């Protein structure tokens, strides 16, 4: 081959390859911290008040700090904080950012991403949603505690960043189950009965795929791993003890095998219509679990760890040191779901009925009343689009995209299918976490697809998907 021809071929390959843009060295830091308070605390995620006086497994914040540099020049940055909470609410993202900004001035605080694992057995963050008894930590006190714990750990992760190598892989584990049942009359019900004659199936598909990310230091020691999983961590859902759900045994198992300092970051992919609760074959699954000597959370962890190891065994052979890292932050206005008159009237009636019941149902009264208030506001001409702060990142061949919601899986499937990345890690619940249903789900109704459950409806869900895909594609141009 002539030298000229060689150069031409090299040039063509260089143009076609996504590896060559913005090559830089990667610096990574990681840290873990407990976000479990010492005293009694109210738990978030159910319609009634639960007070935990005991810790089954500690809820944590797990932090991953990434910076790319070209020589001494900083090219881009990100800090991910995965929290064992139901959602990122009550202003905690802003509170943590305010605390951190002066402590790590070399970090662009706009590039901080907090996400929740959706544990339903983690502390309450928002004032006024539950009737919290005397002697129990208030949401405000918990937010202060959380902020201090997280800020300290983020600072540690950021300041501890060092040259690192990245790798990624993909595996499968059946963890998430679609929890919306459809019926002969066209209705849908979350966790509806599967044994009645009218049951016709599941409303949508599952996503058993697990996207996995690994970081090693220069000595090839595994520093951190992140997993994006299509299922919220809420198997321990209605319990009244602090519990990190399946992320706890996953973390403990991986740390036991791969080093006690390994930081395991748990991300929930789009899974608004999913749950780890078994929907069919419960007895058969229970029998298999019992024969293994595992409970359901232990079995979920077994599957995830098995998928992680299957992937790690081969993915560790391809470690990247010189890859592009881009972090885009944009804002997208998503249309608010409009409340119809009929919906308002139903909500009003529900609010009145629930207000006559025990005080612990206060949350349910508020939930219905908010629809009435929203209707009146909208009728007065005050329509409020949702401001989605959208983070999209590229790391080598893979992409990341965040959203604030409990986004139904079909939107995530669209994002992954239309993304130009080899793997697209989706992180939901980077905000307050209201459900975003599909048009099909809206037609079926039921909790999670009715107006009470949705600040943003299917129109907004599609707008978010389209904006995410545009942002992802722009990083591959």
């Amino acid at each position: 081959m002539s030298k000229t021809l060689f150069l031409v071929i090299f040039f063509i390959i260089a143009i076609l390859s996504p590896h060559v843009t913005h090559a830089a060295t990667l610096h990574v830091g990681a840290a873990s911290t407990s976000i479990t308070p010492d005293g009694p605390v109210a738990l978030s995620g159910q319609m009634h008040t639960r007070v935990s006086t005991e810790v089954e497994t500690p809820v944590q914040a797990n932090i991953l700090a990434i910076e790319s540099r070209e020589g001494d020049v900083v090219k881009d940055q990100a800090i991910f904080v995965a929290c064992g909470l139901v959602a990122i609410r009550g202003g905690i993202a802003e509170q943590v950012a305010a605390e951190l900004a002066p402590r790590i001035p070399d970090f662009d605080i706009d590039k901080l991403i907090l996400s929740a694992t959706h544990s339903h057995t983690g502390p309450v963050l928002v004032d006024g949603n539950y009737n919290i008894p005397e002697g129990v930590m208030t949401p405000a006190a918990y937010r202060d505690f959380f902020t201090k714990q997280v800020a300290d750990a983020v600072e540690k992760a950021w300041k501890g960043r060092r040259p690192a190598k990245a790798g990624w892989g993909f595996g499968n584990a059946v963890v998430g189950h679609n929890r919306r049942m459809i019926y002969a009359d066209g209705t849908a019900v979350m966790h509806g009965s599967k044994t009645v004659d009218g049951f016709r199936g599941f409303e949508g598909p599952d996503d058993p795929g697990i996207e996995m990310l690994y970081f090693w230091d220069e000595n090839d020691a595994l520093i951190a791993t992140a997993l994006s999983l299509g299922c919220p961590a809420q198997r321990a859902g209605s319990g009244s003890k602090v519990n990190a759900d399946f992320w706890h045994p996953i973390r403990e198992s991986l740390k036991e095998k791969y080093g006690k300092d390994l930081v395991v970051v748990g991300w929930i992919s789009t899974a608004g219509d999913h749950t780890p609760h078994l929907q069919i074959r419960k007895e058969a699954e229970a029998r298999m679990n019992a024969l293994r000597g595992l409970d359901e959370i232990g079995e979920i962890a077994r599957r995830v760890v098995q998928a992680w190891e299957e992937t790690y065994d081969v993915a560790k052979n391809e470690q990247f040191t010189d890859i592009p890292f881009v972090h885009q932050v944009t804002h997208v206005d998503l249309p608010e779901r409009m409340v119809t008159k009929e919906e308002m009237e139903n909500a009003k009636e529900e609010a009145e009925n629930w207000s006559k019941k025990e005080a612990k149902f206060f949350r349910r009264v508020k939930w219905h009343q908010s629809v009435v208030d929203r209707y009146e506001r909208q009728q007065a001409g005050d329509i409020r689009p949702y401001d989605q702060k959208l983070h999209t990142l590229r790391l080598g061949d893979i992409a990341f995209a965040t959203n604030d919601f409990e986004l139904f899986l079909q939107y995530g499937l669209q994002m992954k299918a239309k993304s130009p990345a080899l793997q697209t890690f989706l992180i939901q619940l980077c905000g307050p976490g209201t459900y975003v249903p599909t048009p099909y789900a809206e037609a079926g109704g039921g909790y999670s697809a009715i107006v009470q459950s949705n600040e943003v409806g299917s129109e907004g869900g599609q707008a978010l998907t389209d904006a995410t895909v545009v942002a992802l594609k722009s990083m591959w141009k």
Partner: protein
Amino acid sequence: MTRGLPFTFGFAIVSIVSLLVPTCVDATTLHIGASSRSITPDQPVALDGQMRTRIARTVETEVQANALAMESRDGDAVVEQALFVACGLVAVGDDIYQGVQEILTQRIPDFDVSKLILSATHTHTGPVVRDGIYEITDEDVIQPRDYKKFLVVRVADAAEAAWTSRKVAKAGWGMAHAVVAYNRRSYFDDGHAQMYGDISIDSFRGIEGPEDHAIEVLYFWGEDDALIATAVNVVCPSQEVEGRSAINADFWHPVREGLKAKYGKDLVVLGWTGAAGDQSPHIRYRKAAEDRMRGFRGLERLDEIARRIIVAWEEAYEGAQQDKRDDLPLVHQIVPIELPRRMVTEAEYEENKVEIERLKQTPGNFRGVEWRGAVLKRYEAQQAGTVEPFMMDLHTLRLGDVAITANPFELYTQFGIQMKAKSPALQTFVIQLAGPGSYVPTPHAAEGGGYSAIAPSNEVGHEGGQKLVDETVKAVKALWEEK
């Protein structure tokens, strides 16, 4: 790994579960036999399953008939019987079934041939078994009628060998998961759906329905605890290499070989396809990521599928072998049922007429013309008032705590999910393609249309699918009401 329960407590739970699951009727001893035969012809053969004619002149992996015979006895008295044969074919027509029955009537008169269940794995790289649907002009290629003569003898050989080798045995069952199937119907913003529709375009809105990643497994051991046979219910047709022009048993070949290598060369492995009319082993999204991982493992796609199934099989086996049963009920019911046919509308009739004329303009569309032509005949029969309902014998079985049911269709997964959810059994094995195998879509799919949910694809529509589910559930419940 956290072990949430100590083993003793675990066994206590198993016992409680066993008590809660209704146990049966008269305990009997179980006799099991199993056998395999090749159903691969020696000469070139046309392959079934695509719209175009493909001729196989090479054998990549052998297609087989794998047979499992069950008989329960009370002392010397026969209580119940069943004979399953899983075939590496796209489907099993009535002519094949009757042909095998005729041979078995002569050869094994102590077997009630109405209790024979033939099923297909749905490989699209097996011989043509339907007359007149492909143009097969090469003289050295075996014609379907001749292949079927060979086939029925081989299937009967496998069945007879299984039957005559039956001996006192123990049974076990279990389940685990493997991601094999992908729902292959995509839907779009205008409401239409399409099998294998492009998922990267702007208008793609999602995947039409669920998958079922469960792997349900039956195990049979001899009195010496040697594993004789296993039946593996995977809710996915075996058609990963469906476009090839060579004989290939698809993923069941490496599954069989993998299990035999580990658990004995005489192990008989039956591959049962669950309700999976809208499923496929073709990866629908994240294909590059999956391929990269597989590349690291140095596996072909069929081997990767087999790896997953074998891992699941072994996980289930680990549990099942702790709970072997040698004293359990076997009941085999056969209920004749009638299902309403999907009616062809006038618009569908006209549309297919136009499409046939278009197809006739291009050579090589023989199969497509024949496929759409059947719709015209159906419409004309409707107009003449001569349409008969779809008649089928519904087989439902109870073996201890598990139920087994068979249907002749490519049944959408939602119907199988309903059967499993409404069944009183601990595990319900659903075997589709125990017959000629036309698609049965859901109402949602019928609205979206597209291949597999349109009139030419459906002899029976969603009303018939629901009736099949209801009849199946009723029959399975009856098995648990036996005294």
